[in-house]
């Protein structure tokens, strides 16, 4: 997969959808293309995070440690991004991600991503917009859940 295909793919990631293609190309160029074999861990729950991963090919399982063992909570595939929270704020990984099939990912390193945000405010605004969308979405859901909870009481 070439740089320009990676750019196409990045545009499908909601977080980057509004960013100009030229900047996405720079982001792609400064990121690493990494392969994982099936079963290999990309990161583990509790690790400190230093990169986000965009899946270019293959699928990955998102797993959470519980007292009763590891539970698969979701699956990530083509064009989805995992670990993006870690590159925006200092939190340790909230889940484990493991390759379910041979996996081809683009590793976006935290400091490079932050550097991009500093140099190109238009990207920052786009990312902020997406995050605000998510927040309002979450708030809505929370309000809905609360009212449902109250109603059921």
């Amino acid at each position: 997969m070439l740089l320009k295909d990676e750019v196409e793919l990045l545009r499908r990631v909601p977080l980057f959808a509004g960013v100009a293609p030229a900047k996405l190309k720079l982001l792609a160029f400064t990121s690493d293309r990494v392969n994982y074999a099936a079963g290999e861990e990309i990161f583990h729950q509790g690790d400190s995070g230093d990169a986000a991963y965009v899946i270019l090919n293959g699928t990955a399982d998102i797993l959470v440690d519980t007292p009763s063992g590891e539970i698969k909570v979701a699956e990530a595939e083509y064009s989805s991004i995992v670990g993006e929270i870690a590159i925006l704020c200092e939190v340790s990984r909230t889940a484990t991600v493991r390759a379910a099939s041979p996996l081809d990912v683009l590793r976006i390193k935290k400091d490079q991503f932050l550097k991009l945000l500093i140099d190109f405010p238009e990207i920052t605004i786009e990312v902020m917009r997406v995050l605000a969308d998510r927040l309002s979405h979450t708030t809505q859901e929370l309000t809905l859940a609360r009212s449902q909870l109250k109603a059921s009481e």
Partner: protein
Amino acid sequence: MESRLTRYIWKHTKRQQLYILLVVALSMVPYFLSFDLPKQIVNGPIQGKGFEDPGATQLFMPISLDLPYFGTVQLFEGIPLDRMHMLFALSMVFLVLVVVNGLFKLYINTYKGRLGERLLRRIRFELVDRILRFPPQQFKRIKGAEVASMVKDEIEPLGGFTGDAFVQPALLGGQALTALFFILMQNFWLGLIAALMVAIQALVIPRMRRKLLVLGRERQLTARELAGRVSEIVDGIGTIHAYDTSNYERADIAHRLGRIFKIRYDLYQWKFMVKFINNFLAQLTPFLFYCIGGYLALKGKLDIGQLVAVISAYKDLPGPLKDLIDWDQIRQDVQVKYVQVVEQFTVDGVMDPKIQAPATEPPPRLTHPLSAINLSLVDDSGAKLLERVSVQINPGETVAVVGRTAAGGDALADAFGRIIWPESGRVAVGSDDLLELPESVSGRRISYVSSEAYFFYGSLRDNLTYGLKHMALRPATYDDVRMKERRWEIAEARLAGNPDYDINGDWIDYSSANVKEPDQFFDAILEVLDAVQLSSDILDLALRSSMDPARRPDLAERMIELRQALGGVLAAEGAGGLVVPFEPGRYNTEATVGENLLFGTATGPELSGTAIADNAYFRSVMTSTGLSNTLFEMGREIAANAVELFSDLPPDHPFFQQLTFMTADDLPNYQVMLQKLKGRGFAEATREERLSIIRLSFLYIEPRHRFGLLTQERMAEIVEARRQFHEGLPEELRGALETYDPARYSGSATLLDNILFGRISHRHPDGANRIRSIVAGMLKSRGLYDDVLEIGLEFDVGPGGRRLTSTQRQKLNLARALIRHSDYYILNRPLPGLDHRLQDEIVRSVLKLMEKDGRKPAVLWVLSNANLAPLFDRVMVFERGMLVGDGAHHELRENNDTFRQLVS
């Protein structure tokens, strides 16, 4: 050492001085004969005196002695010769005398030179010997470079002076006195005038030279300080850069140089002034002769014949006199230099040479306790480091010393290590004072390690075994030629008062490392390296270093086997694509285009770096295959991509690090170039444009840069060009390129590159580390680990060990003490820079190693981390220079507040 140079020279060379004086006196005989001979030749055969009658003969070389009481004794009657024969005979004698005089001169000069060099060698050695015996506190006050400049430069003129020290004044003084005597013989009063003038010269000139001596001393001191400052700049270069003080250093150096210039200029002014006065005084005497003598002669009060005789006798006086005065100047000069140096080396408390005398027998084991008795220590400023502490460490006991930094424990360890000498009280082994024990006992049976590690220039192995080199135990084996040289070395060393230890012998004391045979020594090294966790560092060093396959053909062969097996092992580990190997006839996608094209390592200047673009053969292949066109098109696309990606980033942006094929400064140039090249192809581009553009494609790696430029066709084209390039490689370039050959070990590549024989894929997370651990595992399983580690031990540590990291230095510092089997180990915070986990592991493994094979040495370990105290039999707690707790760990935990604070 003697305070006067002449006394020093006399003491060490009196026999030679007397001998050379005798030879000089002997050499005077042919010298004076050769003066008389020309007159004889001119008067006799040439002008014909005594040959007035044709056919007349004269006696050639009659030798007779006029002896008192005996009368004349005829030793040789002489041969009657005619005029022509006489001319040839006398000329031949003249020739013989010339040769004899020349030979005498050669012999005398060589002899004097040798005498001087031997004395120089002796004094240099004596100075260094003194440095080795200085008391430790002396080293807090002296600068290494200043001492080095004293030993090397300041002493140097002494050698030249030695040969002339006694011969010159005797010879010149004799000549001057003879000349004076002759003048006195001619006319007493005129002679007296000459003598008076000589006396004035002898009184005035040395007085005037006193200032020269003062200046000379200053010159010496300032030059020495300059040497010290230059070495400070070299040692402190990191600090200078860090604080931007380079201009302060420039100012200081310029100021010093200015001072040195002023001193030297003053020196010249005085020197030539003195010379002028000296010459003037010397010329004053003939003036007096002409003026007063002439006046008296004209008045008829002096016989003209006498005056002429005095004037002609006088011409022999100024020469020797001037030389004598010059000699005196040199004498005073070197005397000053000598005194300056000797003062610096005369220090109170220099160790007795007996303490460092080489031991002929292995020193006995220390079976008595090591103790400090009422020991007080102070630092250089006089502050108390330790106050009246009495402790005893019994053989076989392990003791932890804890306390805050500078609480006193470190000072106690320093005292046991003989780094600080007691202010009062004493340090003893049994009843013997530690400082009076020979170093062959205290420096072997006790091993001291501090956090300040010094390493000597050389390999890791040299430094690791440094603590075992007490004596040349096994002499080196020499062939006949070298043996002769060695014997000469020994004889010379003795003549100059130097020891004749053989530096080429085997100095490593294997028995100190408790090894019977030298070939088991490596196992001992391995054990120690493992204990301090240095082995993996050394393995890395080995993998990154290169090895000459001609030196270790067996190992090179095993490495090739390893290379061939690597693919299988990687596949088994599930890391099949981790390394993309080089295959002849295939394009390696993880390597650059340039590497793929050259497919080898450039070993000569013709094909390395940018020179390859100028190589006629390389260019002809590029053109004939049409590759230059392809690469030009590729390069143009790379440039276009780079400009698109980076043109609106500031030049210092960190993203430029990703741009491996150009720098931020190049970017605008390429932008302009692309504009110019629009609509023009390879054929229309200028030579510079072609070079700059093609250069970009040389560094391109598809999986890394992902511009999508390397199609299958292009790769095939490059491989084809490679084939043609290799096939037609002209004879003169064969030595400049070592092509990748799967079956051959390459001496120009690192060990790791030789094993991998390919490039690590960019697509694997943490690929380099994974491959390293896989390769290490393979080396171990194939029994090659030791051999490779041995290559790592050849790593050159640089001056002061600066090529190692500080962690590696600390580990090596501990390792070189551990390899010695001592009765006491004094470890003074040996691992301060290491993190706690690593410290913990190393302390445990070191204690375990020491007790291996039933050994039970005593250990005094000043811990950086008090939590490791439970590992020891006994714990000492220090606070403010006093011992505030001493006992087993659990006792102290219960009843010692200071200790509880330290471990909490």
